[in-house]
């Protein structure tokens, strides 16, 4: 991944420029939690990008958007595109067996390009990348057995080890504490709990709501809503079934059948009425796919609708909308596929 920075460092932009740009880039709501630290001049000199795995992944995903004016002029951007396509498939869940031959060619392609363009960067990891199609064939989707969450679990143990300040027999302390924790979790009435959590509550009156939305609501829930002083609860964020829904975030609601083109909507408002969650959404048109930025171009066409969280099936994570050259872009994290 660092090779891209170097290639761009060769011309077109100075190291300082890179630093400025990564410092000033505005990450979307969902990506801010994984916001990568800015790439400093020092890092570029050392050929090393700091950050955790998820931060690097975020940077990798948004790279063409951050450097949208430069990428086309770079030779090594070809490699990025191949790797990106491969990675999208590797991280997909569920996957399709019919993708495997294509992934194989992509992987070979990637390795050849690496050898060709950046031979000094061919580390054993490049070789490992080429093995993924085979691994998937044998073991299933890699996200099922990647280390991301396990590494997250390390944090708990490290915290305890530091907190207890007892370094005599750490294994014993940790094992004991883990067992105690297990006791606690099991003494809760439910081990795995689905919860609803909402933030940013505001009460609003019907007369404050936009006319179009009002008619929609009345159509769905009947006339009693039309009364002037009827109030609704409005939220800015909702966690339902472990999925975060945020106002103004974009979600995939369906896939166009043959080509797996995702259809998006954008949440305008989150309401609660009669103990039901209601999303007022704006269905977006998927205008096309930009290979250069590796994201979908979308545009709004004012088709409003009402959706409840239970109707969502496909891809549950919220996505951020970015704007480049007056185009609205949605950057997907992995390739989606629809069950027949």
């Amino acid at each position, binding site marked *: 991944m660092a090779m891209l920075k170097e290639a761009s460092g060769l011309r077109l932009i100075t190291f300082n420029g890179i630093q400025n740009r990564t410092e000033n880039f505005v990450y979307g709501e969902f990506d801010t939690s994984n916001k990568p630290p800015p790439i400093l001049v020092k890092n570029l000199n050392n050929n090393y990008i700091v950050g955790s795995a998820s931060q690097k992944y975020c940077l990798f995903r948004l790279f063409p958007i951050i450097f949208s004016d430069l990428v086309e002029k770079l030779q090594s951007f070809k490699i990025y595109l191949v790797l990106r396509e491969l990675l999208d498939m590797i991280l997909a869940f569920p*996957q399709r067996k019919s993708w495997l031959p294509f992934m194989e060619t992509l992987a070979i392609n990637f390795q*050849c390009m690496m050898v060709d363009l950046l031979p000094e960067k061919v580390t054993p990891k490049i070789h490992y990348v080429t093995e993924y199609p085979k691994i998937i064939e044998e073991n299933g989707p*890699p996200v099922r057995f990647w280390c991301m969450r396990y590494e997250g679990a390390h944090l708990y143990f490290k915290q305890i080890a530091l907190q207890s300040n007892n370094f005599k027999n750490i294994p014993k302390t940790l094992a004991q504490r883990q067992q105690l924790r297990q006791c606690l979790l099991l003494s809760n009435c439910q081990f795995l709990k689905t919860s609803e959590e909402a933030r940013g509550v505001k009460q609003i009156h019907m007369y404050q709501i936009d006319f179009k939305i009002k008619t929609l609501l009345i159509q769905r829930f009947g006339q009693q809503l039309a009364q002037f002083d009827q109030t609704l609860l409005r939220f800015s964020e909702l966690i339902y079934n472990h999925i975060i829904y945020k106002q103004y975030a974009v979600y995939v609601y369906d896939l166009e059948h043959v080509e797996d083109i995702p259809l998006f909507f954008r949440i305008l408002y989150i309401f609660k009425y009669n103990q039901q969650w209601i999303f007022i959404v704006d269905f977006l048109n998927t205008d096309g796919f930009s290979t250069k930025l590796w994201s979908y171009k979308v545009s709004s066409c004012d088709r409003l609708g009402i959706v409840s969280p239970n109707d969502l099936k496909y891809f549950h994570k919220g996505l951020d909308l970015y704007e480049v050259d007056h185009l609205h872009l949605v950057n997907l994290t992995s390739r989606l596929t629809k069950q027949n």
Partner: protein
Amino acid sequence: MSSKTFLCKLCNTNRSFNKFHDYFRHITLYHADEPNFQLTCDLSNSCGVTYKKFTSYKMHIHRHHHFLLNSSFNQQENNDLDDIDQLSIQQPDTTSVDPVTVDNTDENIIYANINNDDFANQWDISSTNILREDKQINLIAVQQLYTRFLLEMREQHILPQTVIQSITTYIVNLLDIVVDLVEEQAKKKNTSQQPSTAVNVSVNDIRTTIKDIEQAIVFSTRNEYQFLQSCKKFFNYTPPIENLLSSNQMKKEYSYHISIKQSLKEILEKGEMLPFLIENIRDQINATQCDPDLIFSFRDCIKGKKIHKQSFLIQLYVDDIGVTNPIGPKKGQHKLTMVYFMLEDVPDPFRSMLQCIHLAAICYSKYLDNDEKIRKFYDPIVKELNDLQLTGLTINTFNSQLLFSFSAIAADNLAAHSVAGFQQTFSSGNFCRRCLVTYENRLIPLTDVHFIQRTYSQHEKCLQLLKNKPYIKSVFGVVGPSPLNDLHNFDPTNSFPGDAMHDFFEGN
């Protein structure tokens, strides 16, 4: 005893006390947190030790002169229970578990002030109600509730043991005050209106109950051992199993195991877990039957075909972590080898939760320096997993046998290579655990070559060769047998799928 007077040497005014417990309380309240605390115990001739810390002095008093404190209690308690002096007897009792911190004693003083105040405030009525309710539950329930509370404090909010002790102290203090309040209130009522209401709980009763509760609380959390005991009693706590790794008697090297079977059993006995798992598997099977092209999990792949359809998948994870001790003589990094396991069939919304990952074994990495120790470390895991795969698990809430099968080991490249018995360097020779690529060959475009995959039989041959000719260090990157070789469904060349996180995102 009462003939003797106790003189406080720490006060400038040389206050004297008639009873020892008064004196002790005075010390606790006013002098415990003095920086230059120094006290010589002159209670009996054999004493005469000087204490520079209040804690040690307190310990000494409780160990050697406990009868003084106790006898004064008894006297008091027998004398007159409705007396105002009552307030004072409680104090030494509570301070007996007091880890002496500055704010703690401050708090005590504040409490004392409140007690001395003439209060006619509002919040005592509600507290009496609670107390009456408390009386109906038995003490064990109180103890259980309290242990649960402490457990939550410790494990959810990760507080150290000392904080727990001060929590106990505060709660005991709080209870004391509640009693005092009740008493005060009762007295007031008595003076104002002689024939009181129908339901009448005597102050004595309340006092004894509270006393019992306090004792139970203090007892169950006096030290780590007691706490663990009460966890065992109420929450089914099972201590980790200690396992001796070293063979010589000189230095004892332990690893700690947590029975996979036991933890699985406990989790699955939670009512909602099994339906979740079964439903999730059924959904996936249905989906793949409609559309055989989809891959959801291990089951839909080549290796997964062999396993039993009804079994749950268990995944292992091995990694080293470093914990740094910033200060002290044991300064430096402590490397630990951790083995986690996880049920693969947990439905997607919960899969990312950390509580789905369970610890299986833990050990200092430096202990695992020879083959024998490594084998000893992994043996219990292998044994248990084999048992689970062959005989399954019976649990109370489900009537048939549950089967499990081992799917794969997730690990970063280094850990995978060390467990599988491959070379642990990635900058020379055969660095891949799945095929026979060499470091020099990595530069050849894949369009020109095809690397031979490692297979089980080929790996066996390598191991045989290594065994026969001990002077050879490695054959095709293989350095030795894997400690997990006895595990069913395990194949060193195949059970370590690459880790997408490390291969794509880590490093540069």
